[in-house]
C-alpha cells in the first residue's frame, strides 16, 4: 500500500510538473498576483505586509493547482483512456486517486517558493521567519488537507460533465473567502462561517503564524488535520458511490 501510494504520488508529481498549464498556474500566476498585491500594498504605504501577501499568493497557487488538477482528475483519466484500467485494478480506487489529488496540492508548493523568491529579489521583501519547526509541520499539513479537499472535489465534480466550468467558478471565491490576500475581518460576517469549513483558511493561518510568529499555529494545524479527515471520509463515500454507479451503467469509458 505504501509503495502504491508513493509511486502514484511521485508519478503524478512528475506528470503535472511536465504540464505547461500547471507550471503556469502554480508558478507564473501566483507570481503575477503577488506582484499586483505587492504594488498595491506598497502604493498604499503598507509595505510591512509583503511577506504576509507573498505567503497568501503562494497558497493561492496551491489552491489553483488542487482545484484544476483534482477537479478534473477523473475526467482526464477518461480522456486518456486509463479510467477503466485503474478502476479494474485490484487496488482500491480510492488509494489510486488520493496520491493524484495530493500530488496536485504538492506542486502548489512551487508557488510558495517562487512568490517568496520573487518578493525577495524584486521587491526587497525581508525573509525573516520565526523558528522553523512549526513551519516544517504547517506546510505539509496544509498540502495534505488541500490534497484531501481535492479528493472531495474529484468525487463530486465527476457528476458534472463540465467540471472545468465549476473549477473556474471556485477559484476566486475561495481566494477571497479564506483570507489569502484580504483579512477575513474586512469581509461580511457570514463569510467567516463558510471559511471555517475550507482548508486554505486554516492552512494560511498555520503558515503565517509559523512564519511570522504570533497566532496559534498548532491550533490551525490541528484544524487542517481535522478537516482533512472529514474530506477523506466524505470523498471516500462519494467515490464509492461514483464507482458503483459507473460500473452498473457502464459509463467508465464514456467521454
Amino acid at each position, binding site marked *: 500500500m505504501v509503495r502504491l501510494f508513493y509511486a502514484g504520488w511521485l508519478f503524478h508529481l512528475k506528470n503535472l510538473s511536465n504540464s505547461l498549464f500547471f507550471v503556469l498556474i502554480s508558478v507564473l500566476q501566483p507570481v503575477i498576483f503577488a506582484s499586483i498585491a505587492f504594488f498595491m*500594498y506598497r502604493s498604499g504605504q503598507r509595505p510591512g505586509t509583503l511577506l504576509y501577501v507573498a505567503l497568501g499568493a503562494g497558497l493561492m497557487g496551491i489552491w489553483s493547482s488542487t482545484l484544476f488538477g483534482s477537479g478534473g482528475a477523473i475526467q482526464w483519466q477518461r480522456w486518456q483512456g486509463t479510467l477503466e484500467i485503474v478502476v479494474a485494478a485490484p487496488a482500491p480506487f480510492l488509494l489510486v486517486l488520493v496520491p493524484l489529488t495530493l500530488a496536485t496540492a504538492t506542486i502548489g508548493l512551487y508557488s510558495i517558493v517562487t512568490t517568496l523568491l520573487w518578493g525577495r529579489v524584486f521587491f526587497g521583501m525581508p525573509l525573516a521567519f520565526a523558528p522553523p519547526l512549526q513551519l516544517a509541520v504547517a506546510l505539509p499539513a496544509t498540502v495534505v488537507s488541500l490534497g484531501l479537499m481535492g479528493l472531495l472535489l474529484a468525487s463530486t465534480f465527476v457528476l458534472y460533465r463540465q467540471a472545468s466550468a465549476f473549477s*473556474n467558478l471556485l477559484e476566486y*471565491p475561495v481566494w477571497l473567502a479564506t483570507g489569502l490576500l484580504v483579512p477575513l475581518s474586512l469581509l461580511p460576517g457570514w463569510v467567516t462561517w463558510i471559511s471555517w469549513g475550507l482548508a486554505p483558511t486554516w492552512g494560511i493561518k498555520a503558515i503565517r503564524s509559523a512564519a511570522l510568529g504570533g497566532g496559534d499555529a498548532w491550533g490551525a494545524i490541528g484544524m487542517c488535520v481535522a478537516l482533512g479527515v472529514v474530506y477523506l471520509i466524505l470523498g471516500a463515500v462519494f467515490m464509492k458511490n461514483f464507482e458503483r454507479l459507473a460500473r452498473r451503467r457502464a459509463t467508465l469509458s464514456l467521454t
Partner: protein
Amino acid sequence: MNAVRVFFLGGAVSYRALFNWMQPVVYVPTMLAGPLFQILLFAYVGRASGVESDAFFVVGNAVQVAAMAGVFGVAMTIGGERWTQTLSLVLVSPANRLALFLGRALPLIVNGFILSWFGFAVGWAFLDFDPAARSLPALALCVATTAASCTAFGLVIGSFGLYAREIFVAANLAYMGLLIFCGVNVPLDALPQWMEAVSRGLPLTHGIEAARSIVGGAAISDVGGLLARELAVGAAYAAAAYVLLRAFEALGRRKASFETY
C-alpha cells in the same frame, strides 16, 4: 456576398459550437461568476491595502473582463478547432480569411461588452460604485472600444493557435499580462517606468483610463484622445493578427501541423 455570409453565419455558428457558452451551466460559472469574484477580490485587496477607491477597482476590472471574452474566446475558437479536429477542414475551405476570422471575433466583442456591464452592475450592487446616469452612454463607448481592441489582441494570440498546440497557456499568460500591466488594479504611476511604457502599447490601458475619467465626471470630448489611442492600438493588433494568421496558416500547411493536438 459569400464573405458576408461567412462573416455573420460562420461567426455565429462558431460561437455556439465551439464555446457552448449558450448553456447556462457553462456560461454562468465561467463568464459571470469569474468576473464577479475578480472584482470583489481586488476591491477588497484595495480596501486592505488602503489604495484607491472601490470605483477605481470596479471600473478597472469591469473593463478588463472584456479581455476575457476577447483573449480566451479567440484563442479557444482556434484551439477548439484543433481539439475537435476541424481546423484543417476550416482552412481547406476557400472562405475569405478576413471574413472568417473577423466573423468569429464579432460575437466576442459583443460578449465582452455585456460582461463589462455585468461587472459594473456587480460594483453597483455590492460595492461603493454609483456612476452618474448621464455618464453611462460615454462609458458604453469606452467599453465598446476596449472590447474591440482586446479582441484584436486576442486574434494575435489566437493566430499562434494555427501553429502551436498550447494556445490556452499563451492566452492565460496574455490575460494575466493585461491584468498587471494595464493599470487595472495598480495605478500606472505606481508601476515601474518600463512597465508603464509597455502598457501604452497594450489594449485596455487607454480604455480603462478613459472609463475612469468618465466615471469621475469628465465629458466624452475630454477622453477623445484616449479612445482614439485605444482604437489605434486595436487597429494595429488587428493588422498584425491578419498577417500572423496568414503566415501561420502557410507554416501550418508546410509542416502539416493542423492536426496535431
